[in-house]
């Protein structure tokens, strides 16, 4: 404001190539401006993201039991890591996580994309369907866990009840059998997260420029060709992002399994995050759990980087 007033009052407008320092100053501000604007976000990231990561890294070098002051904890160097790498329970849990991720993500992507393609057109009732489909997303994971725990309950659960009535199937111990419990958590995860893929994909589909799709119709593409040769490639960046978010979520998933099975029976449904939780708060091995948490961060980072390198969602951005 003050500057504007001064320049407006100055009787002699300065030539474009006049006083260097005056001409240079605003340019510098312009260079700083972007950093200024992202600074709060960077700060929040540092405090909220980087700090906890480093904290858990630090913690992983200690043998710290819950309730004991940290000052009393022993620095054990890499002991926790050595233990982790030879701990079959950790590897089993990673294996469970990968299997869980493979089945849930594959099926969720397939179902979510299929549903989105089916409900994309404004057919009668599509909006009602859409609303119903996204309901699971709005339910908090704890509630999802409780709902499905009771649905899968061997004694009073609806699933056993109706399987019995409709198909004459013997009651199953869904959450107490290794295979069935794994199936149950996969099923629940699909129930909860397919809508997420659905919502993202349908938003992407609806944002597709209609003229490109019309062009493909004129070019002779049938329904399948339009989906596989035009629509899906055009939302590929969205699919990659959805995939990435689901993948990271698989490594974060905790509440639903915690409530439904607690990781059991045995370690059949003990995803890595739940394994860390159980180690930290049930077995009360905070340092060791931190070491496993560091491993989890490494795995997620490697996977995310891999996906981003293969299918960078920013790569195809253009104004076409």
């Amino acid at each position: 404001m003050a500057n504007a007033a001064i320049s407006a009052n100055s009787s002699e407008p300065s030539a474009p190539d006049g006083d260097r320092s005056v001409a240079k100053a605003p340019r510098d501000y312009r260079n700083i401006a972007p950093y200024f604007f992202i600074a709060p976000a960077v700060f929040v990231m540092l405090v909220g993201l980087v700090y906890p990561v480093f904290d858990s890294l630090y913690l992983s070098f200690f043998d710290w039991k819950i309730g004991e002051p940290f000052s009393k904890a022993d620095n054990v160097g890499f002991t926790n890591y050595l233990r982790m790498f030879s701990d079959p329970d950790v590897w089993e849990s990673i294996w469970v996580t990968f299997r869980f991720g493979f089945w849930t993500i594959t099926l969720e992507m397939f179902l979510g994309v299929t549903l989105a393609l089916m409900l994309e057109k404004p057919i009668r009732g599509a909006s009602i369907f859409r609303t119903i489909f996204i309901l699971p997303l709005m339910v908090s994971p704890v509630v999802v866990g409780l709902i499905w725990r009771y649905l899968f309950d061997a004694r009073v659960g609806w699933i056993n009840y109706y399987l019995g009535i409709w198909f004459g199937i013997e009651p199953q111990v869904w959450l107490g059998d290794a295979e069935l419990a794994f199936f149950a958590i996969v099923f629940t995860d699909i129930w909860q997260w397919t809508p997420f893929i659905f919502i993202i994909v349908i938003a992407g589909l609806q944002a597709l420029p209609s003229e490109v799709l019309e062009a493909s119709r004129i070019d002779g593409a049938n329904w399948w060709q339009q989906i596989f040769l035009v629509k899906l490639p055009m939302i590929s960046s969205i699919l990659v992002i959805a995939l990435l978010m689901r993948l990271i979520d698989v490594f974060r998933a905790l509440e639903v399994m915690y409530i439904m099975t607690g990781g059991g029976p045995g370690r059949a449904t003990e995803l890595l995050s739940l394994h860390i939780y159980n180690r930290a708060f049930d077995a009360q091995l905070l340092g060791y759990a931190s070491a496993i948490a560091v491993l989890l961060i490494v795995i997620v980072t490697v996977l995310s980087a891999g996906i981003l390198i293969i299918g960078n969602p920013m790569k195809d951005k253009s104004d076409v």
Partner: protein
Amino acid sequence: MPGVGLNNVVKAYGSTVIIPDLSLDIRESEFVVIVGPSGCGKSTTLRMVAGLESVSAGTIHIRDRDVTYAAPKARDIAMVFQSYALYPHMDVAGNMSFALRLAGTPRAEIDQRVKRAAEMLELTDYLDRKPKDLSGGQRQRVAMGRSIVRDAYVFLFDEPLSNLDAKLRSTMRTELAILHKKLDRTMIYVTHDQIEAMTMADRIVIMDQGIIQQVGSPRDVYTAPKNRFVAGFIGSPSMNFLDGELHGSGSKLEVHGQGFKIPVSKRMQITANAAKDRRVTLGMRPEHFAATANKDGKYAALNLDVDVAEYIGSSQFLAASLGGQPITATVDVGPDAEPMGSGQYFFDTNRMYLFDRASGEAL
């Protein structure tokens, strides 16, 4: 008759009627431009021809075949969209060959046709680029190329040049005209820009509110507009319209209005004398004014109050008023003239148009 025929075509969205009743015959190899103000239903009409929009009533024929209910791909058409509608995930060659690949055309033939189209459009160096790495003009040419390789019977264009800058637009206009000659195909071209229409069309279709106002060659629609709408739409700057009344009769017929009395030209006398309603609208194109009296033609002297005189090279554009009504004129005074002021100007009465004031129909 081969070509494209629309017979009593109606388009309505629910109770909103966009096209009340449209019939149009387009000859084979003809370049027809549909022009009209935005929202008048041009795109809708074109999209019905393409099969992208259903027809509420009436029939559409392409090459003597009733295609009213045929799918777009079954109509033997190619279309260029205003937004180009390129496939962002395919390179230029991929975009151009997509239709052929879907049709199962042999690889060699595809390559050959893509190559030929690329040469024609000077895209040979860009064949492996993605659309995002091309300029607007290049993308536009890829869109053209995509339709050219199809070698379709009808080419449909929906404002293909609107997103280009003025200079590129005029170049592309010429290229399109050449292309039409080379390909010798039926082309239906939609635009809101009457200059594009005038420069490229074999025949112009002028639409307003879903109704065809006039169909004719560029010369027809310029020299003999059927009504006040066409007269005002064709020509740039637009025709001036002044309310007036017919006075006298026979060869002494005059139009009287605020601040002017102009004799009706011989050409117009018969029709004007026959007009029952003496209340008319006088039409004068800006380019038919002059600063000095025309040697051979009939002219009427008019006192214009000039508000602004804009220099446009060899002529000047005047924003003026006549008897209090705004009027524009382009006067050819040479590149060195001083800005023109108020005073006497001359209108070539041979170039006057008269319209029935109530109906807007030409007399």
